């Protein structure tokens, strides 16, 4: 069955017919064509499909599209400003190595946004709790946590990598 719903999508008012059985993920990717939100598992176990509904992080693969009626939806495409300036969280992920293959990044960044909107000075522990449902295989999470800490005002003061050099050798020949 289909019904008409109204919602806000990345700040834009929308009205459209949706099928009852569509997930929000399907609506976003297939119907609206916004492919930034990813399907990583389809069962709410990886967080790659995370979007914000009324500022709350949800797994869009387990969220029925009809349920966004009257609500605000934010996907990764809606985060930067209209002139292209990245949101501080996006910029921080870029600057601090929080992105490698990038598949988890949209979901990760949105989980971070939901957290920092609620607790702008979130601690490391709060950050880890907030992204516990966003799996990443590339980064080992360290630089992701650092990226978020950089925005929440808890970044470390010392440089992480301590490179210590030998004499400029000729390679042992």
């Amino acid at each position: 069955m289909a019904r008409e719903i109204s919602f806000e999508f990345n700040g834009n008012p929308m009205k459209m017919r949706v099928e009852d059985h569509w997930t929000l993920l399907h609506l976003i990717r297939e119907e609206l064509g916004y492919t930034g939100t990813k399907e990583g598992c389809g069962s709410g176990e990886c967080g790659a499909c995370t979007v914000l509904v009324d500022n709350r992080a949800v797994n869009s693969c387990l969220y029925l599209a009809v349920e966004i009626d009257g609500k605000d939806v934010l996907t990764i495409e809606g985060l930067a400003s209209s002139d292209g300036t990245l949101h501080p969280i996006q910029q921080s992920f870029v600057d601090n190595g929080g992105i490698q293959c990038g598949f988890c990044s949209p979901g990760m960044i949105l989980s971070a946004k939901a957290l920092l909107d609620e607790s702008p000075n979130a601690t490391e522990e709060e950050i880890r709790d907030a992204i516990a449902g966003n799996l990443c295989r590339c980064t080992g999470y360290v630089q992701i946590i650092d990226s978020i800490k950089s925005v929440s005002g808890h970044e470390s003061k010392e440089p992480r990598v301590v490179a210590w050099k030998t004499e400029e050798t000729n390679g042992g020949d």
Partner: protein
Amino acid sequence: MKNFTYLLPRTLDEAISMHASHGEGAKYVAGGTDVLVKINEGKLSPDYLISLRHIIGQDRPFLNQETGELYIGAFVTHRAIEKSPLVQANYPILHDAIKNIGSVQIRNVATIGGNLVNAVPSADGAIPLITLDASVNIYGAKGQRSMELLRFFLGPGQCDLERGEILTEIVIPPQLPHTGSAYVKHGRREAMELPMLGVGVLLSLEEDLRTCAKARICLGVAAPTPIRAMGAEQRLVGKIIDENTLAEAGTIAGEESRVRDSIRGVAWYRREMVAVLVKRMGFKALERAERRAR
């Protein structure tokens, strides 16, 4: 995903009559995080999903000041329970458990009622509530009824609901003075875990703050349904709570459990952990009871 029709009743009566009129093809859904997974996996294929999300009610736990009972509506999300200052301050065992269920994304949407009705053995939601002597209110075509949450679970995935009935509310009775409680989920990693074992302990102390007036020990994944280790509880009542009594209680609780092998854990290890974790949660409950008294 297979087609279904989504219905949005505004009242419990509306929901019940919709369920009745669509017979076998109807299924209730709250947050959807269990039901939609089952539909994806082909374990469920309803023609009608009747959403309980829009039924008017409280959206967070609240305390009945007169009776001292804590009411949690079935459609309250885990996140609302997790964030409730009332729960954090006065029912720490519930907070212990809820904050580690799934992820923020899941907790924002999944309801406590849906969790209980799903009736999985790894019942992080149920254990702390049973430990707190919770009862549940159920509403159906025949009206309202109430039962102890402990009796609500009949088997893996099975609970005591007639067709069409809806679990509407969880009621936690007032706690005795000098009560402390704690829950631990035993798993392999720190998040996104279905537990190998869940242990909840509640201790209410006498005025001397050492002797046990009441004990509750509830175990998850130690049997096909949540169980209370009543033998272990009885061993504690009237005794001074210390290393020895808690260790004894742990051992008895282990013997009372009916653990089994699964891909999530082996039986012998689960049984050993019952003893260890009952003891540890006993100490934590004791410490919390003492802290409250000060």
